[in-house]
């Protein structure tokens, strides 16, 4: 075997590997990309929107929150003003979760019309700003601090 032939053989092998690898990556990306959608956009997809991983962004619809603390079952609706989707989530809501709060829910939209969430994040500004008076979160918990006498 001449060294030239070895060289071409090696190049060809690397080429085949590179193509196979690119194919794997493409396939992996294709089936694992999570789209970030608003309720309106998700509803507009119709049946296409079911059972795909989605990040749903919007506000918690005021008055829609039902929290069963014994079963750890949380139900609420996410709205963007026009569309609205019912969400079911397991586990306690984050502390800042409340009516009108911006949230991002990751999960899948089921054919029963309920979005099953696997993770629930409260959307908050990354740049932190001082809260206005009366909005200080800690004031809401003063009672607990008093009751235990610290």
């Amino acid at each position, binding site marked *: 075997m001449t060294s030239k032939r070895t060289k071409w053989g090696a190049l060809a092998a690397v080429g085949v590997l590179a193509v196979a690898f690119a194919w794997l990556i493409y396939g992996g990306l294709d089936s694992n990309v999570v789209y970030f959608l608003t309720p309106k956009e998700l509803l507009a997809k119709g049946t296409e929107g079911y059972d795909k991983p989605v990040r749903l962004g919007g506000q918690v619809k005021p008055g829609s929150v039902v929290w069963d603390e014994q079963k750890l079952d949380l139900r609420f609706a996410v709205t963007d003003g026009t569309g609205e989707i019912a969400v079911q989530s397991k586990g306690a809501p984050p502390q800042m979760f409340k009516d009108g709060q911006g949230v991002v829910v990751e999960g899948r939209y089921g054919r029963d019309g309920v979005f099953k969430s696997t993770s629930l994040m409260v959307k908050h500004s990354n740049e932190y700003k001082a809260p206005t008076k009366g909005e200080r979160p800690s004031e809401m918990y003063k009672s*607990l601090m008093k009751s235990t006498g610290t």
Partner: protein
Amino acid sequence: MTRLLASNAILVAAAITALGAFLMPFAVRRGRRDWLMLGYAAVYTNFVLVTVATLALVWGLVSHDFSIAYVAQVGSRATPTFYTIISLWGALEGSIVFWAWVLAMYGAAVVWFNRNREGNLVPYAALTLLVVSLFFHVLLIGPANPFGAVFPVPFDGPGPNPLLQNHILMGVHPPLLYLGYVGMTVPFAFAVGAMLSGEVASDDWIRLTRRWTVASWGFLTAAIIAGMWWSYEVLGWGGYWAWDPVENASFIPWLTATAYLHSVMVQERRGMLKLWNLNLMVGTFVLTILGTFLTRSGIISSVHAFTTGTIGYFFLAFIGIVLIAALFMVAGNSDRLASDGKLDVPVSRETAFLLQNLFFTAFMFTVLIGTLFPLVAEAARGVKVSVGEPFFNKMSLPLMVALLFLMGVGPALPWRKAAGPELKGRLLPGIVLGVLMLVAVIVAGGRSVYAMLAFLFAGFALGVNLQEFVRGANARVKAHGESWPMALVRLVAGNRRRYSGYVAHIGVVLVAVGVAASSTFKKEQEATLKPGETVTVAGKTLRFKSAWGRQERQREVIGATMELMDGDRVIGTIEPRMNYYPTSQQPVPTPDVRSGWTGDIYLNLMAFKQDGSNVTVKVIWEPLVPWIWIGGLVLCLGAILGAWPTGDRPATRTAGAPALREGAA
């Protein structure tokens, strides 16, 4: 006063680095030693000036000098001094100052140690270091200037981001990361120096920077592990790695640097892969800048991304310039980069290294593409997407398993020649240990193929690498009549480079075992409890005692006291908390972890009734997670062994297989 001192120090440093960089090529061309010394003096002066600027900024923070823009942005009188000092890297501008300082320090040190070397390698490396320094000075004068004036001077500031002042690891992870990231500039500068001076054919650029590279790699490794630990201890989700873009940004250059540490051995031993090694080092450097671009430009939102501004364009432009310059330099040297040796035997150490490099490169591209894809998709198609964890897991698990296998086979294979009959003996301990671990996993209920393979190969790699120590020490005991521990110490001291690698391998195995076990056997449960009620996860029973609140200097704390039970007996208390910082509307979860040899009991306070009548806690059993941190320490030990400067002779390239280096084989 402080402000003017610092900002002028940066201005003068920028001017001096620019002058030095301008002077250096002429000094080399004309062979003017005196000009060269001036160029080196610019490197040292830059270090002094940036040190002044950095100390001035720290002084500004500590003395609460709110006339400095950066202090007004991140300082507050209520923040404890420790967190005030480390808020130097708590936001964009300060982190660039710190970066510039670490870079200036590396530059001054590496030039000082190599200042007397003949030839043009070191001058051109110094030139490269000056140019990179200049880039960071431009950032500090332009888009990331921390020394702006604030008027009227506020009495107090908001304090650092709550997430960054909630745990002591914030004082550890960022400096380690910078030491690792910035340290990669040193081998890069010498790679460029080698190409500009035409000295690529010699391995000098690799030998002169070997310790610097190993040390930087060690810092980067430690930083990644510390980052995982921070995420685990602070973020409250019970995990340590989420393939988050910023985690990936630190991991991508680590992959190429690790590939490089292995492939340079092929160049030093066999004179092969010269072009590849240059590219790996240029790539590693570019990936560190890309990582900084991702985390600092605000293009990705996370704890690491501080602000949106024009700084992203500066980084992109710099990356473009480096890539184009490197392309021309590599092309200009192509005739000098031919291999001296070739791959003569398919099953040899060289092949193991080649495969290792192939897998590491594939790994790097996987993570890189997965990280950049959302940016590309948004730019090209205007859709907002994210690439989920399943992609990274699916793609990386086979690679990790294959790498674990190679880590076991590689050290047992000889250089150049085909493996002889002694191979069986060298592999046997690994095979036995691997099968034992496999059985253990199956007995414990692990059914996933990757979990089984991971444990099998982790045991295999552990066995083979440990065996190298035992075999070498036994041979010394026989030959020199030393006691066994003494033989082990002398064995490692006599060939630190080789055994430091095996120590690092053992560290990787421990990390891999911790990761595999915790992702396979993790158990978690959330429960809402009234005082006296219990919850049981993985056989561990916890009883809720009480909820409480406490006022601390810079924050308010709500906590729950949970008792760990053994039957009716209380054997310990665990107190997950939530910390409320006045400047943040979101509480910072502060999970509490009780560690043992077999795993962690991880508790996070999720919610509570304001009257304390009940709390919701998440209880997670995290098997073998402490071994990830122990493995990280072992990895660092390996890096220290490999980088420690004393008593090591420069390695010479050998054509044949030197009996001494192969130990007792």
